[in-house]
């Protein structure tokens, strides 16, 4: 009962991610079809990768028939943030995460799944993670297929508005803790300022968006961790 309810909680938490993915991967499907890939190939790409930025870069390399080494380097650089997320999340896994389960769950380590999982109170179980990853993967694959086969049915204005969903979800994850903790507020404000600076100051225009995320996030969180270290478990009781 308890285990089933954890799986169900994961499923429920995965719904907004799945809906967001459905719309974003719809766009990926459209792009892949426009680039001359079959709907099957586009769907396979989404099924075996489950990542937005990396797939977009990979798609462009396939369309341009670029060298394989470019594929390896691009995917490595764009996706290196997942290594950071994986390390972070290992600190929250409970004993149900055996090695095979870790190998399975690692497959679905995306920004959004990571964000939702790491925002959970206490430890997370493998059952919860299974629930959490299921619908987003389905949404991602289904959206790609639909986009590649029937991309132009939706009205343009709705398709455009759907582009906001994932970002809105990020806001919903970040804002509540930022209003409760001054340190989190400082961290995200600093990060936002850095991100704007890197995007708009011409001097930094050589930095790709994927790198920019890594640079801004690392600087902002190193600074905040140095200035505002979190309370350890024992101290926490006195500092609520």
């Amino acid at each position: 009962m308890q285990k089933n309810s954890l799986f169900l909680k994961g499923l429920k938490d995965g719904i907004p991610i799945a809906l967001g993915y459905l719309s974003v991967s719809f766009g990926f499907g459209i792009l892949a079809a426009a680039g001359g890939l079959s709907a099957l190939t586009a769907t396979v790409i989404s099924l075996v990768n489950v990542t937005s930025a990396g797939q977009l870069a990979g798609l462009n390399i396939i369309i341009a028939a670029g060298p394989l080494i470019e594929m390896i380097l691009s995917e490595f650089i764009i996706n290196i943030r997942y290594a950071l997320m994986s390390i972070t999340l290992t600190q929250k896994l409970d004993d149900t995460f055996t090695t095979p389960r870790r190998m399975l769950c690692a497959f679905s380590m995306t920004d959004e799944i990571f964000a939702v999982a790491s925002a959970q109170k206490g430890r997370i179980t493998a059952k919860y993670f299974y629930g959490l990853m299921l619908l987003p993967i389905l949404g991602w694959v289904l959206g790609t297929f639909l986009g590649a086969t029937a991309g132009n049915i939706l009205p343009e204005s709705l398709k455009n508005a759907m582009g906001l969903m994932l970002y809105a979800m990020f806001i919903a994850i970040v804002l509540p803790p930022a209003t409760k903790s001054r340190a989190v507020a400082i961290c995200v404000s600093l990060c936002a300022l850095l991100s704007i600076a890197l995007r708009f100051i011409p001097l930094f225009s050589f930095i790709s968006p994927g790198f920019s995320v890594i640079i801004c996030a690392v600087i902002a969180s190193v600074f905040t961790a140095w200035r505002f270290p979190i309370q350890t478990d024992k101290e926490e009781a006195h500092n609520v």
Partner: protein
Amino acid sequence: MSDAKCYLYILVMALVTYLIRAIPFVLFRKQIKSRFIKSLLYYLPYAVLTAMTIPDIFTSTGSTLTAAVGCLAAVVFALLGKSLLTVAVAACMAAFLTDLAMKLL
């Protein structure tokens, strides 16, 4: 690009992506003791999401105005403590309605 070559590329792409995710996830077993590292890992997810959202959210709908209205709706609903799905749908609807209003005016 031939089908075979295309699928070789997809295989390489998937392999690199998977290994980056799986190697740390499988091998990292210890609880981290360092207070600094713990703090860093606590703040990092919020920072990553912020860096991904700003400034990209303002170009996510193809119109800065509809994106800004959608973003504002997301902020308001997030501050009201609504669920992730509610916030996402509210932002999407706000941008959609703004676009509609712009066309009618």
